[in-house]
């Protein structure tokens, strides 16, 4: 299990310095264009010509490519095998073996789906690699995200590593007492319960005190909140975000009036 806050990597790159909302808008735009735009090659071009170069500008290129491959390779392998064999509209047989036949339409469909998912996952990854989650939440709060939602997300990100550490401790303790976590399915199911109990109840008892602690610090105050940090937003970035909107409209138009 991974014990970290998010995918964020601390670097000083122009991409890291961009306003988080700008990066979020760009990510959404690339995804929407990949899914709505025309042509078989558009998503792969977005990945090769925009996302990959950008990841190197952000000084996270290697981690970006490695994580993208790790997260998507199994899906893609599966996708290509299944779709090229079982795609419902497949007519053009490329080659056949035993009772199976690989069809061109299936391969095309698998390629398009795979590259679209690639753009979706890697756009988010690039955003996450170059943006501290706290800064993203702060910026979104200043743009109207409810403070309670920001609180939930921030504290979840900090609770998870602790609960993972606790889970690892309990798992080790149970294993040393002879708990079988490999074995047959029945054994593995029986291994789950002694793990879950201490983990869940241990974290639930803290809820009351934690609620008191944040109320003691004015969390429920009805006064307008202020912010310690101000996140920079430049006019150029605002213009870029409008451009993104334009790109989305164009992609949508190409879908509606081909």
């Amino acid at each position: 299990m991974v014990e970290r806050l998010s995918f964020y990597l601390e670097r000083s790159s122009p991409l890291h310095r961009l306003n988080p909302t700008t990066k979020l808008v760009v990510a959404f735009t690339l995804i929407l264009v990949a899914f709505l735009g025309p042509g078989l090659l558009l998503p792969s071009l977005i990945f090769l010509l925009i996302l990959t170069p950008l990841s190197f500008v952000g000084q996270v290129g290697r981690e970006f490519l490695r994580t993208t491959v790790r997260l998507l390779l199994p899906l893609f392998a599966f996708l290509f095998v299944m779709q090229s064999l079982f795609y419902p509209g497949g007519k053009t047989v490329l080659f056949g073996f035993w009772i199976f036949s690989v069809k061109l339409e299936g391969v095309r469909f698998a390629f398009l789906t795979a590259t679209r998912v690639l753009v979706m996952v890697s756009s988010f990854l690039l955003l996450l690699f170059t943006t501290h989650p706290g800064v993203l939440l702060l910026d979104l709060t200043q743009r109207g995200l409810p403070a309670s939602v920001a609180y939930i997300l921030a504290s979840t990100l900090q609770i998870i590593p602790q609960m993972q550490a606790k889970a690892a401790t309990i798992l080790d303790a149970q294993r040393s007492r002879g708990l079988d976590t490999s074995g047959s399915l029945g054994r593995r199911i029986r291994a789950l319960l002694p793990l879950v109990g201490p983990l869940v109840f241990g974290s639930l008892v803290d809820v009351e005190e934690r609620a008191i602690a944040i109320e003691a610090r004015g969390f429920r105050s009805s006064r307008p909140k202020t912010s310690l940090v101000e996140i920079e937003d430049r006019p150029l970035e605002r213009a870029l975000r409008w451009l993104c909107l334009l790109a989305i409209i164009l992609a949508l138009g190409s879908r509606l009036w081909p």
Partner: protein
Amino acid sequence: MAVIEIQNLTYTYPATSHPALREVSLTVEAGEFVAIIGPNGAGKSTLCYTLAGFIPHFFKGELQGEVRVAGQDIRRVRLEDWVLKVGLVFQNPFNQISGAKFTVYEEIAFGLENIGVPREEMKRRVEEVMALTGIEDLADRSPYALSGGQQQRVALASILVMQPEVLVLDEPTSQLDPIGTREVFQVIRRLAHQGVTIIMAEHKVEWIAEYADRVIALAEGRVIGTGTPADVLTDPRLPDYGIGISRYTAVARRAAGEGLWPAERRLPVTLDEAEAGFRAVEEAHAHLH
């Protein structure tokens, strides 16, 4: 001037049948340092939650009698306003970290953001309390990556920064190691010297003997003694209620049994008083021979 007045307070938590506090009355004056002692389950935490407004506003339940802060009735004041007057720090340092912030500096500012303090003032106040609690060097650390003592000082700073009129501390060192305990007590001592109004539930009677202006002893939800540390802490009934006494008192009581403590002298609660008492005995003996 009385900051907090409690009269005939009886309080029962929801879904329980026995009151946690029974007919409690007490007054806290501005600038006073009041200590609350009592065995586990005596109602110390309940009293702290009441002073801090969480009873009845957060816990609900049944409250009889009167609780007033700065003359206002607790039932008429919203919790969000009450917490600005009375700050609360409790035992578990870990649970007092908000989770909303990623650095200690931001963590301390969290309360000020919530109540809408302007940015420049916020920074000034955060830096002031960080100096007061001795945690300047932790500013950029994650509040979760700290020792218990450091976390508790962050919790203390996070409340102090809101500038409450009264500070309520519920056994603030009971879950800390000796180093953490010393660090936290150093800060509390500094606050007491500055004249901050402090109410502290605490087991460490030697510490109370030295710093508290007044002691309130609780047992089974009732006030069983109130007065100066010297009066309350030497009350012979304390051990019967399961309340620990100062080791100086214990030694002197043993000595008194053997006739080795001046009969007219009150039992000591601090090292200095014990020393003075035993010197007097020594001189008296020297006189005899």
